[in-house]
């Protein structure tokens, strides 16, 4: 490839670690996130190995508890929350709106260093002997009873939060102020809308987590009596603070993937997404409503019944904009010209699994059934359907869709399709049995379990093996493609979107002159329909 592309314009260490190019920052994040994902996945593999037998002592009770805590903390705070925004948002946002970079390139680099620092602190906690508080850090267990590295782990998450806020700020300002002439709000791609909504959540919700973790550390170190009743505190206060952030956080984890779904669908259906305006609006609605439902994590916590009533109703209402998206995506298939590329398979997998995960949410928003299902494996299945069956699948779809743009190479298509199907089936085998475990009453976070849950756990662990293959296969052929893959053209998929007007990979400066922006046709992309 010619020497002025962002990947090879400069090759020394300084040009990478002191880069101001949003595309290189995206790759810095990609490398860091891959390491975190690997650590989180290993923790999960060890858990599923343990759970092959009801009374296994492969892991001690404490070690198992440290594993599920590590898995949750890493996967939530150091993988799912940052992944799509920091890799694909950083790389694509300026390209999609016709900008040369983000609004604050230095702040962007700083965000990565802050994230790295947070990750190092948390990983140290894990290597120095682990944390066994769960990713939810409930008090007074984590504030007054655990003598593991809770403070260090919480501090790592605290630091990483600043990275989120700065990224969100950067995206919001960029979207408002750096759109090329002709890129009106109406013409904004749906992925940009999803990043915008996500950034609003980053900026408004993350500070609440920051303060909560600060109070938790203060409680551990100084016993000031915020959360521990023996010092006059209220343990439920922690739950309200924690979930006020952590519920909107799950929308951070799902909105960008939904944006990816829209982009990939538009391309491989050869038409604009059905109900484009409503999909954009629903991203904002999800972000807004998402702040009003946190108490649905606390129906049996001892909170007031009035609060529970309000949260239950609000939780049903927040499902509406997600339903609108799904119906519109299905509508996009109508009179389309559908190509089943690898990324399309991932995205269709997202829609199917997200729908199942979302529908199981109907049981959890319900005040009666949630009492039975709370803190059981049903919950574990529900959120994994959305976060893995949904977000991770869409992430892999994004990786495959924009791989040529990022790297200038194409991967082997058939192998990629097989890989997608492997991931989808491995996922289903791992997590569907957990719905049944939960309905039968098996609580979560159990290192051993009663004999009657043995078969279901074996199925789940077997599925995890298949899922692992599904994760590793792309790693192999994508790396292979860097050297041996077919060289990519600017627009190998015949997609709409400004990023496809640039060479693959783009030059460091993105656009040589402001891009020519036209109304996106309703249908017939790249064909002669």
């Amino acid at each position, binding site marked *: 490839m010619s020497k002025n592309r962002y990947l090879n314009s400069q090759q020394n260490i300084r040009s990478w670690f002191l880069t101001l190019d949003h595309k290189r920052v995206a790759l810095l994040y990609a490398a860091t996130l891959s390491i975190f994902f690997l650590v989180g996945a290993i923790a999960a593999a060890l858990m599923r190995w343990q759970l092959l037998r009801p009374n296994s002592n492969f892991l001690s009770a*404490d070690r198992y508890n440290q594993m599920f805590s590590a898995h949750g903390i890493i996967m939530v705070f150091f993988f799912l929350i940052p992944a799509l925004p920091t890799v694909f948002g950083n790389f694509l946002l300026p390209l999609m709106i016709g900008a040369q970079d983000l609004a604050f390139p230095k702040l962007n680099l700083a965000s990565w260093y802050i994230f790295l620092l947070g990750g190092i602190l948390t990983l140290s906690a894990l290597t120095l002997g682990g944390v066994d508080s769960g990713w939810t850090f*409930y008090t007074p267990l984590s504030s007054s009873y655990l003598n593991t590295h809770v403070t260090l782990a919480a501090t790592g998450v605290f630091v990483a939060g600043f990275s989120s806020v700065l990224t969100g700020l950067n995206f919001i300002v960029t979207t408002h102020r750096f759109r090329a002439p002709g890129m009106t709000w109406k013409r904004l791609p749906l992925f940009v809308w999803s990043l915008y909504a996500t950034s609003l959540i980053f900026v408004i919700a993350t500070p609440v987590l920051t303060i909560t973790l600060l109070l938790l550390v203060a409680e551990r170190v100084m016993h000031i009596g915020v959360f521990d009743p023996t010092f006059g505190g209220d*343990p439920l206060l922690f739950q309200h603070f924690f979930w006020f952030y952590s519920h909107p956080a799950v929308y951070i984890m799902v909105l960008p993937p939904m944006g990816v779904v829209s982009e990939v669908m538009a391309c491989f*259906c050869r038409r604009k997404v059905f109900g484009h305006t409503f999909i954009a609006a629903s991203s904002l609605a999800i972000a807004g409503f998402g702040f009003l439902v946190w108490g649905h994590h606390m129906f049996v916590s001892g909170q007031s019944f009035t609060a529970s009533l309000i949260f239950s109703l609000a939780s049903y209402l927040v499902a509406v904009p997600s339903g609108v998206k799904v119906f519109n995506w299905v509508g996009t298939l109508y*009179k389309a010209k559908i190509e*089943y590329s690898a990324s399309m398979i991932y995205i269709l997998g997202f829609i199917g699994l997200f729908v199942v995960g979302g529908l199981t949410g109907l049981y959890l928003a319900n*005040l009666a059934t949630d009492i039975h299902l709370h803190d059981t494996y049903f919950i574990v299945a529900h959120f994994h359907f959305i976060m893995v069956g949904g977000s991770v699948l869409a992430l892999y779809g994004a990786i495959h869709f924009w791989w040529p743009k990022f790297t200038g190479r194409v991967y082997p298509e058939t192998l990629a399709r097989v890989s997608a199907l492997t991931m989808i089936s491995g996922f289903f085998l791992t997590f569907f049995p957990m719905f049944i475990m939960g309905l039968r009453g098996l609580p979560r976070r159990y290192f051993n379990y009663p004999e009657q849950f043995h078969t*279901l756990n074996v199925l789940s662990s077997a599925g995890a093996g298949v899922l692992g293959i599904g994760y590793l296969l792309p790693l192999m052929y994508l790396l292979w493609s860097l050297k041996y893959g077919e060289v990519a053209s600017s627009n190998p998929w015949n997609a709409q979107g400004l990023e496809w007007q640039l060479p693959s990979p783009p030059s460091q400066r993105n656009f040589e002159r402001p891009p020519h922006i036209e109304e996106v046709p*309703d249908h017939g992309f790249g064909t002669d329909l």
Partner: protein
Amino acid sequence: MNVLDIFPGKINNAFAKAVAINYVAITAVSLLLLFIVIVTGVFFGIRYRSLSSAHRYKPPSMKVWIEVVFIAIPLFFGVILFSFGAKAVVDHGREYPKNGLTIFVIGKQWIWKFVHENGVKEAGELHLPSHTPIRLVMVSEDVIHSFGLPDFRLKQDVLPDRYTELWFEPISEGTFPLYCNQYCGSFHARMGGQIKITSKEEYELWLAKEAFRNHLQQPEDTNNGEKIYERYGCASCHGANGRGGIAPRLDNLLGKHVHFSNSDSLIANETYYRDSILFPARKVVFGFPDTMPSFQGRISEEELVALIQYLTSLRGVSDVQKPLP
């Protein structure tokens, strides 16, 4: 238990029946929506695949009325399912028993302790009678636990700073698992047990035998409520047998209105007793001085339970709270 047994056991209390109706309703709605999405999706996915010659002239890109339908469908079902669930819980709360058995539950890392009305204690296993409303008044001695009874579709977090409650009336006899459902540290997974439901007669017989056995083993029980009342000097203000003095009367108090110096009032329950002993300054009875000392840190949850059981058994002559002249 074979793979097709999704629900544990059969419906064993009224609430479980209401929950079952909700399960059916939610499953019906879910299957309907899933069916619509999957069938439509698969149909379109096959018909409009790129190699097919299906008719594609002018695909619509947005029609507002369709979007309104897309909004109305989940909204409609959501409100219905919300009201079904809310009704089930409201009804269950409305039927909260005034008479029945009150069992105290004390959770601690990593064991459940139970105290029956006559002071008999159990750990890990709880004997209960069928066809009797049972109230569980629960507290933790350390972290947050959760008392989970999947067969009864019931669960309630157990907190260290106040009592939380659960009630049910078992229909049939049997042994049912109980689990701790809130992660509480190392042996959370081992903090389970079972409840054994027997007939009322068998339960009473068992209870009497246990009480007798305890009496044989420990004729001088220094840990009963009356002894605790003495030991902590309660009588010096509240009078012997709780008949009052410079502090309010305590006999016949359960279920009565109490009025406070700041014009608040409440109906006395176990939580009120516990709060008064641990945090007396929070609510001072109208007409009385704010001089009761706090026993927080000095009295254990088990002593509190025994004390409250003793106090709620006191039956005095008057049922009006009046300061003695």
